[in-house]
């Protein structure tokens, strides 16, 4: 009898752990909570280019998150009655940075450069998904190694040896 109960408990715990792992994976893909309900869709529909805010994507490894100064460059006049814009303006007035939760992140052991990918003619959407239609920003995929290689291995043959080399990303 005892043995059966033990078996059930062990099974339940195992199922729980597996479920937790799966859920946590799902959560990686889910849109995280943000301090301000910023909508990429609204901004892209208004005609903004990605590089207007993420200015350093062409010049640096990091695309960059716009400063509050940049936000206020437009929102001193535009949509000042919107409550979300007012929340943002509150940060500006207090001189506090907005603590955004990161959506897409490469691990510390990966060397990744926006500049290189944009110079080869890739679009932002190739990796970040259809972000121009997202009112809540979520990651487009797991952004793991398989996902990177999926694209790297489809490149012209003369480049594959270099693009599939470990040291290209794991320097």
């Amino acid at each position, binding site marked *: 009898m005892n043995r059966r109960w033990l078996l059930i408990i062990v099974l339940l715990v195992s199922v729980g*752990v597996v479920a*937790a*792992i799966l*859920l*946590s*994976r799902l*959560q*990686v893909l889910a849109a*995280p909570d943000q301090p301000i309900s910023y909508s990429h869709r609204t901004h892209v529909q208004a005609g903004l280019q990605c590089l207007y805010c993420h200015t*350093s994507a062409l*010049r*640096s*490894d*990091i*695309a*960059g*998150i*716009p*400063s*509050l*100064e*940049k936000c206020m460059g437009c929102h001193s006049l535009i949509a000042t009655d919107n409550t979300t814009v007012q929340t943002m303006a509150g*940060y*500006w007035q207090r*001189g*506090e*940075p*907005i*603590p*955004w*939760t*990161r959506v897409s*992140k490469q691990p510390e052991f990966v060397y990744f450069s926006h500049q290189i990918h944009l110079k080869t003619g890739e679009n932002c959407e190739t990796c970040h998904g259809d972000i121009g239609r997202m009112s809540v920003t979520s990651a487009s995929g797991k952004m793991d190694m398989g996902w990177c290689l999926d694209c790297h291995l489809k490149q012209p043959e003369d480049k594959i040896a270099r693009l599939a080399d470990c040291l290209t990303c794991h320097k």
Partner: protein
Amino acid sequence: MSWKAASRNQDTLQTLTKKMPPTLRRREFLKLAGVATATAGLVPAIHNFIIEPFVNPPEEELPGQATWYASTCRQCPAGCGIVVRTINGRAKKIEGNPLHPLNRGKLCARGQAGLQVLYNPDRLRNAVRQVGGRGSRQFEALYWPEALELLSSKIATLSRPERLAFLGGMMPGHAYLLITRLLEALGAGPPMIYDLQSALEGRSVAAQLSQTFFGTPDLPVYDLSQSDVVLSFGANLLETWMSPVAQSVAYGAMRQGLMGNRGLLVQFEPRLSATAASADEWIPVRPGAEGFVALAIGRIIIEERLGHVGSYRSQAVLYQNVDVRAMAAASDVPVDTLRRLARAFADADRAVAIPGGYLAGQRNGFASMLAVQALNLVVAQVGREGGVFLSNPGPTASLQHNPPANTFDEVMELTGRMKAGEIDLLLVYGTNPVFELPAAAGFAEAISRVPFVVSFSPFVDETAVWADLILPDHTYLESWGYQVPLPGADRPVVSSQQPVVRPLYDTLSTVEVLLELAARLGGKPAEALPWEDEASFLEEIIGELFGSSLAAYDARTPSGFWALWRQYGGWWSERTIQREPELNEAIQKPLPVSDPQFEGNPDDYPFHLYPYSSIILSDGRGANLPWLQETPDPMTTVQWGMWVELNPITANLLGVSDDDIVQVESPHGILEVPVVIYPGIRPDVVAIPVGQGHQDYGRFAQAVKGSNPMELVAPVTDLSTGALAWGATRVRVKPTTRKQVLARLESLDGKGRETLE
């Protein structure tokens, strides 16, 4: 071998059980591994990365990429060029500017530690007023316009302008130019420039020496790099004296010159400094008798007609009163040694003798320095490669207006006026006189008699504690400026200083304060200082250099020049221009032979006190930087400490050993300090590094146990120059029964390694 077979072997079993916990079995290992894997799987759910973009991004900021700004180091008065690596608007690393003709890409430990001035947790973050009375250390934040209004009303209501005094340290050129203009417009006396560093390196005496020899107060540049034989008389030229980084670069060139010649360096001083340790020969001269050595060497060259033919005849008159034997006896240097050195010096193709700071710190300092400089004359090395040149002055009239070091006598005259109640308003900038002047000079009492004192220090130092108002300046990494390095390089140079980061706190550049004061006061001051802000003032002064044919770079427009000026880290000539001194006729008379005098009766006070300039803390201004405090002193390897160095013979006589606390007493003060037994010091000399013993100046400076050695120093001067004779105090040393174990990286005597004989 199977496990069972192994377990039969007792030795192997014991080894295995020692290395592995005996209870961990296969099943437990699997359980642990299972839990670890599950936890690892959950990690992404736990992590939440926050990114905080800038509210206002720094100029030229590119995320993840470093921006390097060229500027000028302000950790000592030398004026080396630096480049500062900044990322995300934060300064991360300071290096030497490879283009700068003075330091050529090199930088010393103090320069590297400049980041900790910027990020120091003890910086004042806004203007403050002392509310609990002066010395109470109770500060109340003050709104800047209110602070400026308070100061300008104090200036406006002075009964006479002479009742305003300005006491500063070796400041950058632009600050000095504005201060003198403002004081002149107000009708007040000129600013008083004095700090301990300038006293220890003998800056004011060096200027007077140049005046006597070359008819100009511009400091000489000794061309070490091209020299074959260098006689250094108490100049710790690889540590703190004058321009140590430039001199270290030149020393390297001298040792490993292109010609393959290895230059000879001989160091004369009572204690083996790090410079002496890098020399070929250290000659522990009797304190104050360095000049005698120089006189004797000169006399021998003349008498024996050594060296280059004809170069000595006209100089014979200089040594009329010199008796070599008497000089040898008075200096503790045998005649044979003197003769050997005279030959080496005179026979060398290029040789130079350097009168250093320790000489200037004696009561016969000027006579000694005259004797040393005369050696360069005797071997005809004035204005010759490997000899003596003069610093290039600033290339324009405004840039020639640089701070001269005032003498101790002049500071005492100001102190006297303060004591007599003749000063109503004292402004203190870039110096810490309460800590840096000998305690017996009475500055602490004098400052308490001044009704209103304003300090511009970014830190609450010993002098700022006596201020009513502290208007903290930016640190140098947040400031504008320029500096003409004096002593200079082998060509005309003006170093540029620019902010590498935005000011971290609500501080205000002192130059901005002066401009604002002038505007508030109106009238003459406003006319004398008409600039709207610091940058526009600099642009005007620096703009005068635009179009100069000498420049190392070309600019087509004034604004282009202003950009290049900041990018390069200054302005300098493309090619070498060494300024040859013109000899003053007045020196053709016998050199004075002046006996050293000391404060304190030799029977009561048997030892000479040598308060030396520390390579780590310089005159004490580095004491609030933990990187410097934890840097081992190069000779004793002590970290975070203060000590007195005793010769092993002296220590034996006193019955003390390493780390024993002794009392060091002079006619003017007494302090307790642990002993470091140091063979590299004369038995009749005890040495204490200056810079420790802070009562204020922040947590790191105050963390070190000890007293300020300036409490021992007698306020006596060399009568012929008025300079502080900081090396002319005698002391006695008494053992106590207590110990303070110093943190030392290495022991000098190899204790604990006796078995390795």
